[in-house]
């Protein structure tokens, strides 16, 4: 099945089963948030885990995707699928411009350029009239899928979010395991060698960057529809940091890691909210513990234990 190894196939089926069963046990809105962040983290992981490019500005694509989708759905009356498409295209467009600039440098310089561009984007969002400044875009309608099916019901929109997530997830998996993905991994391991083999690494990196930002845009767009809001939180650099946390916690360069990471971080945020200040403290402690003791992340460690590439 799509080149899955047996272990991965089982893990994927398990994950799919969980995605299907979970809304009957846990609160669907919470799960949709998890799925949106999971997709976002997977997109980020595509870049950092498989090309070795650490972007510190992924919130820009996520947030802009969410703004444009929100605006399109609210003001132009786009149907949900078109709004998500608009968000994806926004992520793509931004990715082309930002990526074209950023991939010229490596390591810390790459990270700083992406951060700087994302900050510029943040300031733009603070000032631009269409984002509603610090109030954000509020009360975005969930609309009707294909103009027919109302998504007002939580379960209906959950199905849409689950499909978007699974599609994105499989797409990323397909990219990683394609010949293109093999070249990306070669670039990650040793870029001069990839160049000497005749690969135009800049082109590969740019395409990977754009794919990542497009999926991040789709994740943001989906989130805007779920919650009916698009705000500065989504473009703020704290969001870029959060996605790094999710990916590291779950397991860098593992296909399932970011999903697990997104689940853990979102669950902490939601279920520890009643303990007030302890949320951020707990997040910090877990992050430190993870970096010190489980450097491969939850899924990474699990994979190593089971000798599986998850």
């Amino acid at each position, binding site marked *: 099945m799509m080149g899955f190894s*047996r*272990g991965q196939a*089982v*893990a994927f089926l*398990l*994950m799919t089963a*969980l995605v299907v069963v979970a809304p009957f*046990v*846990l*609160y669907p*809105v*919470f799960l949709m*948030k998890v799925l949106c962040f999971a997709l976002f983290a997977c997109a980020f992981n595509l870049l950092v885990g498989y090309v070795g490019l650490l972007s510190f500005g992924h919130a820009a694509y996520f947030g802009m995707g969410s703004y444009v989708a929100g605006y399109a759905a609210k003001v132009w009356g786009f149907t949900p699928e078109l709004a998500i498409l608009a968000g994806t295209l926004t992520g793509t467009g931004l990715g082309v411009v930002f990526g074209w600039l950023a991939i010229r440098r490596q390591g810390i310089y790459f990270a700083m350029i992406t951060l700087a561009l994302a900050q510029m984007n943040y*300031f733009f969002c*603070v*000032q631009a009239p269409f984002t*509603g*400044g*610090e*109030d*954000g875009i*509020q*009360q975005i309608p969930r609309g009707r899928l294909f103009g027919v099916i109302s998504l007002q019901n*939580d379960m209906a929109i959950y199905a849409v979010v689950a499909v978007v997530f699974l599609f994105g997830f499989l797409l990323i998996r397909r990219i990683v395991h394609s010949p293109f993905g093999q070249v990306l991994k070669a670039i990650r391991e040793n870029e001069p060698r990839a160049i000497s083999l005749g690969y135009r690494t800049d082109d590969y990196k740019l395409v990977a960057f754009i794919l990542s930002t497009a999926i991040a845009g789709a994740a943001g767009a989906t*989130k805007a529809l779920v*919650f*009916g*809001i698009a*705000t*500065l*939180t*989504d473009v703020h650099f704290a969001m870029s940091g959060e996605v790094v946390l999710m990916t590291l916690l779950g397991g860098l360069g593992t296909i399932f890691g970011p999903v*697990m990471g997104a*689940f*853990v971080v979102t*669950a902490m*945020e*939601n*279920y520890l*909210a*009643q*303990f*007030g*200040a302890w*949320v*951020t403290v707990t997040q910090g402690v877990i992050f430190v513990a993870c970096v010190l003791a489980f450097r491969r992340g*939850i*899924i990474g460690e*699990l994979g190593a*234990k*089971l000798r*599986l590439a*998850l």
Partner: protein
Amino acid sequence: MEISRRALLGTAAAVATVPVARRARAQANTIKIGVLNDQSGPYRDTGGPTSVICAKQAVEEFQSKGFNVEVIAADHQNKPDLGASIAREWYDREGVDLIIDVPTSSVALAIAGVSKEKNKVHINVGAATSDLTGKSCSPTLVHYCYDTYMLAKSTGGATVKAGGDSWYFITADYAFGQQLQKDTTAFVTAAGGKVLGSSPYPFPGTTDFSSFLLQAQSSGAKVLGLCNAGGDTVNSIKQAKEFGIKMRLAAMLMFVTDVNALGLDAAQGLVLTESFYWDLNDRTRAFTNRVKAKTPNNWPNMIHAGNYSGTLHFLKAVADMGVAEAKKSGAAIVERMKKMPVDDDCFQGSIRVDGRGMFPSYLFEVKKPSESKGKWDYFKTLVTTPADQAWRPLNEGGCYFVTA
């Protein structure tokens, strides 16, 4: 086969970390109140745990009319999506009937939307935006004790009456700051004052206000209006003190709790507006005496008092209707709240048809350290604006269900 079993076990173990979802169903005879605010970030002292304490105080003092009241609380971290998902879960799963407090405009507008959709009551105390009773108004919402219009009117208009007739603004250059400057300018000129200039500064990220302060000083204006909030306000006040700026400082958005954090030495002479101060009269002092043991380091400001008064007023309306009736519709509860006068130790007034709480506003001046007689003795009252003049007129808000 062995591998897949292992994968299964591994994933199962990971799933075991899932926090067990609590299935708390709405109980017919219990009214549940959720205090949703910032418990860990910049608005922790202006709202935070003290708001929860004040809401609980109201529940304690409320003479039970044959139903139970439960108070829960959560931290929204100033993230609208987190706030909205907590609110949805509270309404859908926890059976919450009222969400109160909710600082930060973006979160407040999101919660107002969710509450309207679910037909549940939201009493907003913590957020400043006057849109809550204007173009974003909702039949299930009450905005309790302050907003940007009232702050601009009192601090702008009343300061001119108290002698500060020429102004200079330092403004955070984004929608909130610009709006505040525009509103305040209108009130200053209406009261016969004039504005000599303004320095917009890039927001966010500005920490050095020195050049703006010197420009303000050289304009020769008597009053320096600070159209910003939170950390920016605190920074500009501290730096004004360090530069020995001789103008009267007017903070457009500031609370007694911020003055406590700044200290009288830096804050003396500053003017600001609140609708509650613990030392206003016998009733406010009595209220403060009852709660201060529970929150010894953070005495109530107007947001905290609003949480107390809002909770109490809500419970009175519910008791008046009967729990069974109240559970059916949030809009009906708010309807009832608008019909009943607000009368408790913190606030006396009413709720207007658009959800606006109608209470007097007070222009305070921060005392000099030598004038302060004790702990938290910070303000003297300069001007009182009566309730019917303090707020934006009903027909100017643009609320869709208000028919003029």
